């Protein structure tokens, strides 16, 4: 039996999702026979962690503060081992710009992009260069906040006329936005789980998300039953599946992920390309990593047990 502090909730915009993930993990930890101290993360986190004196912290936080290296840094300071990726990996995964640079530098495919910031617009006259940017990337573009999980604030811009509103919306979530070339294709999610044996990481069966009669895979659909069909394992040519697996494994190593992670990819006309990497993937009833694990014959409890066991190896 291990004394586990379960960190959930928090103040991020993904609080609700985190509470849902946290509740499931809490149940699983109890079933596994651990002593769980659930903590809805707030300004008293340090006090509560000191009181709880856990052997391990299970990080079930999504979004700012919980997935971006902040809480990981804090746990390092308090010398509490924790689940999932370390500070460096979290910082890079949660910042889409850093993640894309890392992927490209490592020779992995990711759609072309440009990052723009409030400062660029306000102090450097960046707006003047918008048409050049659009020309370089070509429409349609996807506009995303650089550091916001889920699909909050993600907008399409089909033309230059739609760009200002999309930029303004995405900039509502943070000071920088990513303009990314839109790749039309199949949406794949590749979940990965620490593996004590084998090669250190197990690439789980690939999930394909097929929106039901919808143009775009939005935030609501991502966490709700009935809005999107999930096919697992996705029907892919062996060669493509091997390629996807290879890319996922390389991304895991490049970004120095630990415990578990999920890669979102598009299988476009030029093959698979990586959109983003989630260092604390959703663990809700409708999340993709648990589905992928299930397809591999791993129960939710197995997933939680493995992620916890990995934390204990540090």
């Amino acid at each position, binding site marked *: 039996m291990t004394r586990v502090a379960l960190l959930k909730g928090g103040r991020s915009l993904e609080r609700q999702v985190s509470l849902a993930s946290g509740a499931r993990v809490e149940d699983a930890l*109890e079933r596994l*026979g651990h002593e769980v101290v659930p903590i809805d993360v707030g300004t008293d986190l340090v006090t509560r962690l000191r009181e709880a004196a856990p052997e391990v912290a299970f990080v079930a936080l999504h979004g700012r503060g919980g997935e971006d290296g902040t809480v990981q840094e804090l746990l390092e300071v308090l010398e509490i081992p924790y689940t999932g990726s370390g500070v460096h990996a979290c910082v890079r995964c949660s910042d889409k710009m850093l993640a894309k640079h890392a992927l490209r530098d490592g020779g992995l495919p990711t759609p072309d992009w440009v990052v723009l910031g409030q400062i660029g617009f306000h102090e450097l006259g960046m707006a003047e260069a918008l048409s050049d940017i659009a020309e370089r990337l070509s429409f349609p573009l996807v506009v995303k906040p650089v550091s916001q999980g889920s699909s909050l604030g993600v907008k399409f811009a089909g033309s230059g006329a739609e760009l200002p509103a999309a930029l*303004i919306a995405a900039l*509502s979530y943070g000071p920088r936005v990513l303009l990314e070339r839109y790749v039309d294709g199949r949406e794949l999610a590749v979940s990965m789980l620490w593996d004590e044996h084998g090669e250190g990481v197990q690439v789980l069966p690939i999930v394909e998300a097929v929106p039901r009669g919808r143009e775009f895979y939005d935030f609501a659909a991502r966490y709700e039953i009935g809005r999107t069909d999930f096919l697992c394992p996705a029907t892919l040519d062996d060669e493509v599946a091997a390629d996807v697996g290879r890319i996922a494994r390389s991304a895991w190593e490049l970004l120095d992920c630990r415990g578990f992670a999920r890669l979102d990819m598009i299988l476009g006309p030029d093959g698979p390309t990586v959109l983003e990497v989630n260092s604390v993937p959703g663990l809700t009833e409708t999340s993709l990593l648990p589905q992928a694990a299930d397809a591999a014959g791993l129960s939710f409890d197995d997933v939680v047990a493995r992620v916890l066991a990995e934390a204990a190896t540090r």
Partner: protein
Amino acid sequence: MTERHPPRSAAHELERYDGLFASRTRVMRSSAMRDLMAVTVRPEVISLAGGLPDTSTFPPALFTRLLGQVPVAQALQYGPSEGLPGVREAITRVMAAEHMAVDPDEVIVTTGGQQAIDLVTKALIDPGDIVIAEAPTYPGAVPTFCAYEAEVIQIEMDGDGMSLDALEETLARLDREHRRPKFIYTIPTFQNPAGVTMSLARRRRLVNLARERELIVLEDNPYGLLRYEGDSLPTLRSLEVPAGSTDDNDFVIYAGTMSKILSPGVRVGWLVAPRPLLAKLILGKQSSDLCSSTLTQHFVAAYFATADWHGYIDELRGLYHRRRDVILDALAEHLPAAATWTHPEGGLFIWVTLPDFIHTTDLLARALAENVAFVPGEAAFADGRGQHSMRLNFSSEADDDIREGVRRIGKIVAEQVGLHDKLTGRRSGVAGSPAEQAAPPESAAAPDNVLALPRRGSTEGRRSRKA
């Protein structure tokens, strides 16, 4: 290990539940907006989002005295589904204050006004049936209509409430398609979320239309007694059944609530319905909850039997009137010229419409970073419109917090307008005080800017181009 949760299989969970859910749950959606709203309950957030009355105004000593008067054994027992006699009698007195004459036996006590909407929808709507509502409509009604798989058609409004021309056009179109709505849902007085009031002429026309076409109208009137200026208007119910009339062949279902004139915590609302409908509504109520809380009903009965309820409503009226003026002043001071808003003569809400390049759901994320919240306009539509509007409440926060909240919203809106100017090389008009600005360009009215927006300084309101 605790025994709290029995072991269960995690295998195939998604598929398993997906197969178990009723088809209506497919339209019971949460959304990004609702997830964001969950963050607004943080204590440090100034919330102009809720529809909360200020219950701190209720005298604690009175509360204690009333509770002391509650008969213990009865209060802890089940009660009649249609409600306690004392409450039904009290409801007739509240309705009399708005010049409506009803018998206590025409009244069903509901668990809040929300259950009134739910029961009517449950009794009348089969999947695919049409409900007509205002655009925008009460955000809490949208999920109810969706849960019963209604098709919601929303009729645009202007400063005089729902456009009856637009309603007739819609009914004519439906006639051609051999369809007819099951009922029309309206909040004629101090509408939530728009804050506008249906004119007398339109009220008469709507009642006549309902009678001619034999259409049910659900009149939701939570705020009628909270008028701060202007003359009272008759409710649809009183136009349909004038005092002294014995004609009960009417088409108006009336929904009321204690939530805004006493307390939402007591969860006491009511329905007054044409007699043939009453029995079905009571059956629906029985299947939902058997009866509303007898404990709080006894409290309500004691309140209306012994307390100065008129005086308390006067007090609320004074308080909310002042706060309405505070928010209107703050909006004029802090919102850029490209924004427009309504001027409610009563009730709890103001509807603000921003330029069409600002999405209010995304703006809410930015607002939460500044610790201020509002309801994004999308919540008031079943069809995704309303993206450039927001609902502001002025009843629940203190004057200074209202000012500060509006100042913060004004700051981030100005920020986004400024950014838009930079991105487009145009000027939307944000610098300087709004009073110095020229009238906003018509382009400020987005295609989904469905509500006529009386400009600041004009209590009359400008008519919609569509009116």
